[in-house]
């Protein structure tokens, strides 16, 4: 939209206490992604953005606006073609693929619209899967998966197959899988897209709980109801990232992302 011309300022983030500022989780510095032509397509125009520990950020925009590209870059599923992306203090730009994968597995929890639960595997097994590639011993995996399921209120469905679970239960299981590895960032992609409004509300309540417990959240959505829950809202349109101060937190000074056009 209207490009915010204000340079990216440092002071930001909720629950800032005293002099110690929460650590930076996501830091975009001129990050952009252009698919080589002809003609070259700018899926995400270079932008700068900082997400601090404990923040709850909604990324909104119509479909085809570049939301997915943004998600893929933040989630380390895709590399930007320009700029620098520092995740939890580690510069990901130059990292080899193997380390990028490890970083993705250990620092980011994904929640997808389509749940992506493996069929024919119980909820517990699906949650435990998240720790498979970090060589956590099987016994500990199951233990932690149980705890995570309890955390999302799904302990009683631990041994159910996804096909026997409701949409809300599936998404809760998916959230349990995303948080079981204690990630630094929970990345949610249209997580209520397949849910009715009542179920969606309860899932969003769960996100609020997680946020309250200190989890850093980035929620990508086209649904204003979902976005309204977040303290910050970032809008993407035609690959251009912009941030407007939302009514939800009027007293807080918002850091505006720098858009370099």
């Amino acid at each position, binding site marked *: 939209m209207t490009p915010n011309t204000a340079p990216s300022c440092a002071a930001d983030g909720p629950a800032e206490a005293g002099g110690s500022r929460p650590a930076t989780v996501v830091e975009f510095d001129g990050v952009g992604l252009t698919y080589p032509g002809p003609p070259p397509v700018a899926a995400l125009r270079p932008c700068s953005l900082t997400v601090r520990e404990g923040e709850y950020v909604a990324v909104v925009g119509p479909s085809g606006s570049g939301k997915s590209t943004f998600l893929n870059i933040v989630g380390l599923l895709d590399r930007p073609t320009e700029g620098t992306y520092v995740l939890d203090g*580690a510069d990901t730009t130059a990292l080899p693929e*193997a380390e990028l*994968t490890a970083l993705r597995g250990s620092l980011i929890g994904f929640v997808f619209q389509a749940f992506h639960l493996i069929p024919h595997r119980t909820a517990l097994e699906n949650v435990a899967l998240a720790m498979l*590639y970090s060589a956590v011993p099987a016994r500990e995996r199951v233990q932690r998966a149980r705890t995570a399921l309890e955390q999302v209120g799904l302990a009683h469905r631990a041994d159910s197959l996804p096909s026997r679970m409701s949409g809300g239960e599936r998404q809760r299981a998916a959230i349990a*899988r995303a948080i079981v590895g204690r990630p630094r960032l929970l990345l949610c992609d249209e997580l209520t897209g397949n849910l009715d409004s009542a179920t969606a509300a309860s899932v969003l309540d769960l996100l609020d709980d997680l946020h309250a417990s200190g989890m850093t959240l980035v929620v990508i959505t086209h649904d204003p109801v979902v976005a309204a829950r977040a303290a910050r809202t970032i809008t993407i349109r035609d690959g251009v990232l912009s941030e407007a101060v939302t009514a939800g937190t009027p007293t807080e000074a918002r850091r505006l992302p720098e858009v370099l056009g």
Partner: protein
Amino acid sequence: MRGMRGRAGRGGRRSRLRAGDLVREALAGLLQRPGRSALTALGTVLGVGTFVAILGLTATASSQIDARFNALSATEVTVEDTGGDDADHITNSFPADAPARVGRLHGVEHAGVYWIASPEAASGSPGAGTVTSSPVGDLAAGEDVQVVAATPGVLQAAGPGLAQGRIYDAYHQRNAADVAVIGAGLAERLGILTLETRPAVFIGGRPFTVIGIVDDVDRKEELLLSVTVPSSTAMAHWGGPVRGERARMLISTRLGAATQVARNAATALDPAHPERFKVIPPPDPQMLRGGVSGDLDQLFLLLAGICLVIGTVGIANTTLVAVLERTGEIGLRRALGARARHITAQFLTESAALGLLGGLVGTSIGTLVVVGVAVLRDWTAVIHPLTVVAAPVIGLATGLLAGIHPAWKASRIPPVEALRR
């Protein structure tokens, strides 16, 4: 506080997948669709099954040929008197103490020299060889049967089953006693029904006391149709073997000793002229076995190979379909920290496990087929242990081979693509 250093340390780490977890994941992947997995493995089952069945049936059949080579033939050695270069003027190369000489060889149980006696040639008058049990009456015409001159060792080596009486021994041999042992069939034709009456047979008019009637022998069946007399007796009455009817030696050995005995017999008989004897050892079991593998087996093995190829293609195809179906799962795993090689490893392990499973089932079925055929034909089922070990390995190799392409494909799916729904 999360320091920069700590976080950098975390970034330097790489994802790991434990081998146990890999196998568990692969098996879980297979068990997701048990029906499809079974169908996929069918080709391998058939290929490996055919492989085992053919090798097993071949081994079983050749072991039946081996069975003809039994304990009796394996312990029998025959020595023929060829006479060597001196055949024209030496009618009998066997020394007088030939049975004793050979008897000293290790492993020999019984040995004896025998030849076809020729009373006619000796006496020069036709009819001298006619055998009758009575000089007068209906039976006086007699039977024109073979008279065998044999040392007692021949009878012992032949393993006779006596209907009545006994066989002659060293005593009769030493004294050139006029005794005879006759076959049961011949005894019946001669009208000799019992030895209670001390019957005699007349060979060319000369009486011989019948001391035994043989109704069965282990070897040298011709004794059943002959009159057998001590060789010393025959020697005294009719002389040694005549030209054209040279003497032979029959040796029975302990099991396993025959080859060794055969090697030494000629030298033991006459160290100066071992070339005068032709020793016939029992057939070599190794050679019998070697002669069995025919063109047919190779054809069937080719068929088994074709089955395996079809099985490989089947696994490859189904795994490829599964990869496409499970694109979402692949994307999810990548998002959870799986590296491309972890995806490759998982699909390879799945197809290898499928191949191994198919191989194991195929081995079992092949074995059952072999046992079934053996039972029907009243054979002893024989499967070489190497076959049983190799067959599942072949299945495993098939699965691995089949998995290479799909696994590679799976690892090439970019996670972004995989998660797009």
